[in-house]
């Protein structure tokens, strides 16, 4: 195995010059991951927000007013109003409220004193998931108000003991951005590197590479190492935007991000190499990348928890390098130092990388046969 520095330098210079000179390429490499980060950070959130709550109670009720104040302060509710006389069903039907909390006849105070009086909550459940969350919010608020006012509600319906670890606000942004660091980068590397190799074949420049005294190793490294560097830059870019703009916590260390990032970038490039050995045009390389990416993303845990995926498909998750790196970034960034988990994920990633790289190496030919 002969690898000359001068050859790799030549490749680096050439690949980067070609990228810089092609605005479409620059756009694909840096702008698309950024847009995805901002989209997932700002808009695409599974969190339930902007709930309209109505409380049916006497306006003089202290508890009702506390509930309103807490609801408004929580950030989950858009409005929270107290109505003395209103028809709860028509409030929901007219869409003036999404949830209506109805005080018992004698008022919240009496009911809470007794501790076991049911308090009715009407929720518009046309969206069941949303309704469940709204239900949870209201229960939590009522429980907090009761506790604050010194009522003992331990035996009643209003009984909540929920603790959320690592992501206290159950904030989807903090959860999604570490996954995006893998997903966006993987997409870019697979598509861009795969197409760059296919382009050499399509235009005939591959013949020039093969007719030169470059070894297979030099051509493979020369065509992938520049993209490896680009991959790490994208990972860093998304992490930076996540921390600086969206304020996600960063509890791990940078070297962990580097190790995990390097390993999955390597796996992405190995897949790109394998695809490029079986295709001969850029269009085919694009198709090949898509064929890998769709199941690759769905079975990576980015959107659907791996634990919820049924048996046959879960096995495929375990073969997917994205799955390990997503888990690792989430753990490193949100949780910090669980070294056991980190190294076990890294280990499996390495195993997958070795297998993929061997396949790529075996298939990458130094002749046109």
């Amino acid at each position, binding site marked *: 195995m*002969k690898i*000359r520095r*001068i*050859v790799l*330098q*030549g*490749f680096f*210079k*050439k690949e980067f*010059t*070609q990228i810089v*000179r*092609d605005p479409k390429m620059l756009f694909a490499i840096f702008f698309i991951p950024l847009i995805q980060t901002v989209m997932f950070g700002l808009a695409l959130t599974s969190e339930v927000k902007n709930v309209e709550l109505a409380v049916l109670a006497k306006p003089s009720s202290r508890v009702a007013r506390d509930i309103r104040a807490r609801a408004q302060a929580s950030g989950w509710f858009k409005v929270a109003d107290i109505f003395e006389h209103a028809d709860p069903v028509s409030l929901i039907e007219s869409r003036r409220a999404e949830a209506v909390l109805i005080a018992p006849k004698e008022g919240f105070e009496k009911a809470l004193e007794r501790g076991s009086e049911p308090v009715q909550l009407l929720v518009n459940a046309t969206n069941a998931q949303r309704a469940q969350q709204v239900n949870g919010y209201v229960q939590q608020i009522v429980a907090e108000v009761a506790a604050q006012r010194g009522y003992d509600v331990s035996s009643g319906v209003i009984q909540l003991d929920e603790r959320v670890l690592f992501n206290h606000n159950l904030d989807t942004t903090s959860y999604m951005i570490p996954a995006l660091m893998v997903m966006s980068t993987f997409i870019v590397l697979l598509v861009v590197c795969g197409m760059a190799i296919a382009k050499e074949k399509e*235009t*005939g*420049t591959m*013949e*020039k*590479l*093969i*007719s*030169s*005294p*470059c*070894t297979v190793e030099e051509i493979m490294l020369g065509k992938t190492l520049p993209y490896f560097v680009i991959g790490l830059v994208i990972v860093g870019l998304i992490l930076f935007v996540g921390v600086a703009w969206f304020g996600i916590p960063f509890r791990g260390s940078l070297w962990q991000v580097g190790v995990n990032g390097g390993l999955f970038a390597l796996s992405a490039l190995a897949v790109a190499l394998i695809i490029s050995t079986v295709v001969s045009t850029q269009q085919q390389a694009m198709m090949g990348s898509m064929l890998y990416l769709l199941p690759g993303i769905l079975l990576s845990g980015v959107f659907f928890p791996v634990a919820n995926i049924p048996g046959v498909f879960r096995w495929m998750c375990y073969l997917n390098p994205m799955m390990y790196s997503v888990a690792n970034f989430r753990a490193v960034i949100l949780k910090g130092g669980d070294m056991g988990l980190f190294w076990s994920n890294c280990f499996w990633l390495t195993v997958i990388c070795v297998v993929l790289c061997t396949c790529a190496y075996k298939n990458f030919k*130094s*002749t*046109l*046969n």
Partner: protein
Amino acid sequence: MNKEHKPIIRVENLTVAFGDFKAVDGISFSVERGEIFGFLGANGAGKTTTIRCICGLLNPTQGVVEVDGKDVSSSTLVLKPHIGYMSQKFTLYPDLTVRENLVFAGSLYGLTRAQIKTRAAELMQFIGLTQHLDEPVKLLSGGVKQVVALAATLLHNPDLIFLDEPTAGTSPATRADFWRLIRTLAQNGKTIFVTTHYMDEAEYCGRIVLMERGKIIAAGTPQALKKQFFPQPPVELLFKRPEQARVRAELKARNIASAQMFGDALRAEVQDAARFDKYTRQNQAIFDVHPAQPTLEDVFLKAVCGREGK
């Protein structure tokens, strides 16, 4: 490379098959050091496939391919630094400048930046393109692109140079320039292996091989080939009165000669000299007879027709 008196390329019984199709079918030839060796044939005759085998880009299905006495498939990496291959496909990067293309091509051969710089300056002088050095290749005209591709091929100063249809699709002026460069290279001791389907270019070659459907149908110097296929040189009939069609039909019908239109004239291959003389005397008022030189085009046509006639 050592300068012993041994052929620089030796091909014996080379066969390359893609599935059932034999692109090259059992050919043998050798190339001497310092000669311009022409490889002629129509598209699909197997020229490029043969070159790819000699350059180590393709493994032969059967046969021996030796360069400088070494088997190509087993010592590819040793031989490649001495070989320059200009592919039929355009192998420069259009988005890079001429200089950037040369630098990259040089780095593939392990040349340092300083070496590339000196060599590029020399080559640009040689091909006369100094003013284009910092232009993106995609903005150059077709002919200039080919010449730049040649420069990229010569960058590492190879002894054996393969040019696969270097002048295809370029203007006559560019072709003439290109051949001037090729001759200069040969004078400097390089071995040039060139394919073309322009028969007039083949006249510049020291020796040529004609290929047709994977087989060699003729080989030798241009002069020898002309002698071989035209033991009697053809004659040209220059007309004083426009009766070419009638004369041609008569010559053919009476089996005196086969004639082809050649501009205003007829070019005839005499089959029966005595009767041809008689016919000429009878028609003195209509045409004059002049001796003519057969071209390689004629040779090629005859060689191909001869095979198809079999």
